[in-house]
């Protein structure tokens, strides 16, 4: 069969030809000057759309909001380059009047749009006014709800008159992942309907402009502005990469392969196993922590969210019983293979929170008691973080920190000790009963819980969920995990679930103020069953005491130390009531490859920002990155 | 006298299968000798699964596993070429096929490619032997068809558009277009109704007369043999049991099986129902010892059960394999 020989030869030659080019995935750009970053949005359906103010019409973390956008302030989820708070377009912090009905912003001077036009108060005015008169822009609703009038007494001052007092109005312009971005007036006023304008190519305020993009939405390449000195990050130095490519690298296995081939400098997130594989096989790859647990704890708190409008979870005793049936060590192993940062309280254990909340409340937690009806138990076990570290040490050795402080930082502190006996007593007090080895509700129906998880979108949480239902099942509760692939957003909003793993707590990270999520927990926002619930109080839990705390926070300034006290009150309240069962921070396995670039943020020596590259805050990473040589 | 066109000697062809180590042999053709002279129509008769078709396949070398030729030879003596069918190369065989040796097959319904027009069959089968240009070739074919009283239009028809009898005529035309020296006709009339059958037989007869070809004509229908063939061979259980001029065989059969076949022909004025043979045809995987017909034979004796009766000449040109040849009663 001579034909086979030809085929083999053809393949061989083809492969040789391929070998040269397959190594290099970008054409016409020097790899050494290019940073390749994963965009977790994946393929962008409408790639040629760079009007970020029109909802959904295009990608956001394609580099567009990290490298192209800017607004008044940034709060860093970690320590920040120069402190947590950065005045970006603003020259100073927000200035409120006494009753929080007016906010004044002083603008930084000498900042230019990428087309050479200077940024000024007129742009701000245009942005706000456009949102006031146009419905359906990304920030139209919050602007219309809050702003009565906006004015610019001079070129670098903007004054917002608010419809009602709001001590957190600046949050709208303060980047935590994103915030309301400023529009280039000179571009948009010529563009007609701002909802239908594609803004391609975008005129940017950031240090980069668009170089090229794939019409099919697989990649976006940005290029450093020659006048980068006229942008806000210039205060910290020159951005390192000349080009930044945001790509859709495909499923997790492929991201691992791509980084092992050194064709993906930053992986946004990957499975724990993928992270371990990279740590083992690629000398140049590393995570936020130098060794285990590698991942960056995002200021997000995955929890078992119990739908408070469901009869089953109305009793605090039941909620507490469910918490006491969870063995967090097993959950940590099942979800993150131990690489989790656990938290017993309703604040993510990251950024400034451990110092402000976790450490100071440790003593209170140790003494905290719950009454099972038969006896009082102290549920808190402060050694669980250490136990997790100890159980990992035999297989991972050196990588596992040994100082109590380090352990607390990487693995968290304590959690609730599994206590089936107490859970049984609590359930019995709530009128539940056990017949044979099955539990029944007071109305005689079997006690059955469907725990909803997100599936593919959050694989680690799916794993945690299946471990938790397994533990509940072993206790005699008819628990099962259901995957709400695709429909999670709708079901979560509509309250169409019994229990789910998601987060209703997100914080600034670097800043201890809790209003970011807490305000939405006020009972005034809780929707009727079946009606959509505004983010983030997915548990639809109401409590008069909580309302009181929230109302007090609203009247307290953002940086007022009194806010911390109120925050701690909130923590104590939710520990007593257990409306959601906090598990751990959302650890993101962002993996960075040193082959072409150094200077990435890390926990030990450079905690200047969050490495997770879809955060708009990563603009600060660019100025710290240096070519490897 | 010149050599016979076809010489078959000592031919033995078995179906051999083996499953899980168990060998199975079906002795479909066992020790067959026959000769066919130039220009004669030789008939081959016998009930179904007596080995007729296998014999023909073996003669034409159309054998495929599990059929194997174990012994014997098949030799054609064409006018200027002698060919051993089982010793010749593929190319040699291909050369004689259709030019010297052609075939009219059983089940004429399906012998033509259903998705192509009839014309292509003529091209595929005969063009390489006739040569010339395509147009000239088609002219020759048309002339041939006309000679056989067929409309040349049939060339442009698909097989399914022709009636059964028509298709069989086309097949005969196809088989004879190269004026072959030898034609194998395997039950060409079996599926046809009586009237059509008669026409087809007449056609074969006239073609054969015209071209002087030799024909081996297989059918189980004794009436057809009586009307068409010059000589007749009777097969039973994989063996040739009687052979002679057709008229002789009909007049004075020398084998009880032949007698039975002839007796079962309907005749005018017959009132009594025909007496059937008892028993089933022999299982050729495990044939009875001795004469294979003995279990069903009214004349069977001890020797028949022990020894295989040899094929011996009982009258000039009339051979039979029976120990009790003399006792066979004429019809």
């Amino acid at each position: 069969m001579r034909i086979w020989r030809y085929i083999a030869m053809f393949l061989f030659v083809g492969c040789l030809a391929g070998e040269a080019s397959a190594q290099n995935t970008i054409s016409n750009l020097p790899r050494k000057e290019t940073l390749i970053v994963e965009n977790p949005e994946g393929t962008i359906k409408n790639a040629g759309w760079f009007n970020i103010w029109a909802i959904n019409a295009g990608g956001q973390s394609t580099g567009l909001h990290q490298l192209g956008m800017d607004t008044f302030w940034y709060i860093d989820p970690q320590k920040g380059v120069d402190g947590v708070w950065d005045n970006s377009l603003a020259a100073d912090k927000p200035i409120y009047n006494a009753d929080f009905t007016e906010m004044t912003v002083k603008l930084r001077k000498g900042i230019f749009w990428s087309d050479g036009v200077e940024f000024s108060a007129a742009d701000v005015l245009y942005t706000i006014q456009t949102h006031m008169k146009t419905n359906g822009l990304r920030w139209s609703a919050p602007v219309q709800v809050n702003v009565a009038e906006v004015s610019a007494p001079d070129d670098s001052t903007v004054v917002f008159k608010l419809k009602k007092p709001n001590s957190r109005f600046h949050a709208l312009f303060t980047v935590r992942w994103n915030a309301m971005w400023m529009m280039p007036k000179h571009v948009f006023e010529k563009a007609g309907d701002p909802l239908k304008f594609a803004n391609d190519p975008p005129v940017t305020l950031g240090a980069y402009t668009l170089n090229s993009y794939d019409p099919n939405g697989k990649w976006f390449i940005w290029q450093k502005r020659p006048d980068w000195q006229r942008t806000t990050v210039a205060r910290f130095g020159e951005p390192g990469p000349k080009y930044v490519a945001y790509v859709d690298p495909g499923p997790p296995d492929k991201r691992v392969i791509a980084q092992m081939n050194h064709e993906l400098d930053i992986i946004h997130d990957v499975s724990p196993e993928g992270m371990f594989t990279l740590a083992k096989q690629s000398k140049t790859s590393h995570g936020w922590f130098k060794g285990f647990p590698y991942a960056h704890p995002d200021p997000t708190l995955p929890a078992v969210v119990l739908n408070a409008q469901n009869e089953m979870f109305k009793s605090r005793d039941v909620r507490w019983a469910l918490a006491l049936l969870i063995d967090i060590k097993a959950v940590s192993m099942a979800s993150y293979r131990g690489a989790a940062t656990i938290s017993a309280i309703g604040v993510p254990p990251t950024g400034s929170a451990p110092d402000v909340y976790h450490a100071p409340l440790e003593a209170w937690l140790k003494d905290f008691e719950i009454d099972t009806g038969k006896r009082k138990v102290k549920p808190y076990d402060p050694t669980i973080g250490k136990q997790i570290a100890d159980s990992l040490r035999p297989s991972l050795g050196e990588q596992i920190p040994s100082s109590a402080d380090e352990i607390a930082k990487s693995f968290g502190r304590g959690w609730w000790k599994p206590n089936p006996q107490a859970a049984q007593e609590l359930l019995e007090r709530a009128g539940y009963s056990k017949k044979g080895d099955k539990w029944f509700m007071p109305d005689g129906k079997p006690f059955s819980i469907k725990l909803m998880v997100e599936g593919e979108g959050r694989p680690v949480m799916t794993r945690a969920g299946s471990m938790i239902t397994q533990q509940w099942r072993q206790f005699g509760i008819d628990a099962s995990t259901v995957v709400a692939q695709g429909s999670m957003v709708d079901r979560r909003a509509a309250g169409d679930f019994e229990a789910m793993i998601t987060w209703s707590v997100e914080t600034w990270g670097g800043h201890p103020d809790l209003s970011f999520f807490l305000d939405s927990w006020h009972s005034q926002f809780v929707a009727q069953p079946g009606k959509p619930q505004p983010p983030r109080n997915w548990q639809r839990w109401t409590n008069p005491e909580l309302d009181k705390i929230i109302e007090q926070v609203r009247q307290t300034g953002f940086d007022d130390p009194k806010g911390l006290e109120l925050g701690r009150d909130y923590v104590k309240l939710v520990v007593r009531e257990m409306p959601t069962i906090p598990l751990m921070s959302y650890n993101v396995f962002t993996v960075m490859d040193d082959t072409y670039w150094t200077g990435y943020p890390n926990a030990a020596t450079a905690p200047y920002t969050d490495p997770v590259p879809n955060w708009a805050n990563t603009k600060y990473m660019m100025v710290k990155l240096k070519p490897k040589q | 006298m010149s050599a016979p066109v076809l010489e078959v000697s000592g031919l033995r062809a078995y179906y051999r299968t083996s499953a899980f180590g168990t060998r199975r042999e079906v002795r479909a053709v066992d020790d067959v000798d026959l000769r066919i002279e130039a220009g004669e129509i030789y008939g081959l008769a016998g009930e179904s699964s007596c080995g007729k078709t296998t014999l023909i396949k073996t003669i034409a070398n159309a054998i495929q596993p599990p059929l194997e030729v174990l012994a014997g030879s098949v030799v054609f003596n064409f006018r200027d070429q002698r060919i051993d069918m089982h010793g010749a190369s593929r190319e040699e065989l291909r050369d004689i096929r259709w030019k010297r040796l052609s075939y009219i097959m059983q089940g004429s319904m399906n012998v033509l490619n259903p998705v192509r027009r009839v014309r292509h069959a003529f091209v595929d089968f005969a063009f390489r032997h006739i040569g010339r240009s395509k147009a000239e070739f088609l002219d020759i074919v048309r002339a041939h068809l006309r000679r056989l009283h067929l409309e040349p239009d049939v060339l442009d028809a698909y097989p399914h558009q022709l009636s059964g009898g028509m298709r069989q005529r086309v097949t005969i035309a196809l088989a004879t277009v190269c004026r072959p020296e030898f034609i194998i006709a395997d039950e060409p009339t079996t599926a046809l109704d009586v009237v059509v059958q008669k026409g087809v037989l007449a056609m074969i007869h006239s073609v054969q007369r015209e071209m002087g070809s030799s024909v081996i004509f297989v059918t189980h229908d004794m009436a057809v043999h009586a009307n068409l063939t010059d000589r007749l061979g009777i097969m039973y259980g994989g063996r040739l049991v009687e052979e002679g001029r057709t008229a002789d065989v009909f007049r004075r059969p020398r084998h009880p099986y032949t007698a039975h076949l002839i007796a079962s022909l309907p005749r005018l004025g017959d009132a009594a129902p025909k007496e059937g043979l008892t028993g089933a045809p022999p299982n050729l995987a495990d044939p009875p010892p001795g004469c294979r017909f003995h279990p069903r034979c009214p004349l069977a004796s001890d020797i028949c059960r022990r020894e295989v009766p040899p094929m011996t000449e009982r009258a000039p040109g009339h051979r039979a394999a029976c120990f009790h040849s003399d006792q066979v009663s004429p019809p």
Partner: protein
Amino acid sequence: MISGYPLYLLGRLGQFALVVFIGINIAFIVTHATPIDPVEQSIAAATQFGSTSPEAIALMRQSLKELYGLEGGLAEQYASFWRRVAVGDFGPSLSAFPTPVSVLIGRALPWTVSLLVVSTLLTWALGNLLGGLAGYYAKNRTLRLAGLLAMAFHPIPYYIVAFLLLIVFGYLWPVLPISGGYKMNMARDWSWEFIGSLLIHGILPVCSLALVGLGGWFMGMRSLVSNIVTEDYVTYAELGGVKRGRILGSYVMRNALVPQITGLAMSLGAIFNGAIITEQVFGYPGVGTLLVSAVHVGDYSLVLGITTVSIVAVSLAVLLIDLLYPLLDPRVKAR
């Protein structure tokens, strides 16, 4: 018979129109039955991670509803859907508002069509050729081995095959690109360089589809052929000394191809659904990814757009096959 053909044609065209109409209606009903609300999806997308004031949500919901034109009832949407489809417009996508659905499909379709036409034809031709040879030369060892391989590959879930290829040629022996349809930052100018890049990026997707698809055609063809070789007309042609190549081609394959061509037409019609897993694994652009993401976010305009294109394409393929069938198999009278 000829005089009946126009009548038959008319009837068949009517059936085509009916099938398309019913199909699109089913698609309309099904897509609108989705519990996924595009407005909620947009709100979630706009409020995830970032700062959100709960008071603003209700306002946002209302204005998005107006913007997307979802205010009217189902009947109204149905009417406007048909009004638009009649002029070949599927309206704006709800998840990429205000970009028209047709623009989104138009961007993805060329990739899908070229990838799948190439791989389908290649697979079909190769599968049938090998299958035909294997059925005809049943004893040939190489062909038997090929058959065994095709059969072993056939049942492996496609995802696994694709990924194994990716690991082998993208990592262990990194000779082929594993992502995208062409190199990043390359101008789509139809230069030789660009075409070369297109081809080399297509190798793995095409091969993966071929590896898995080959077995089906192979086995189908082999069993068809092994039935056909016992047909009288094949035996007869062999007795007639017709060349083996000619027998294989004009007698055996020609007859066996009739059902295989039907299969081919249908697979070609079905390509408008895209190759979802291929696109996912190889990061290849195409309609599949678009469809999956549209389904995920409840963008029923887009789902309906893709579905309608696919319905029309498959129906057309079926129609063509029915009209051409008498040519392929003259035994079947058009009726």
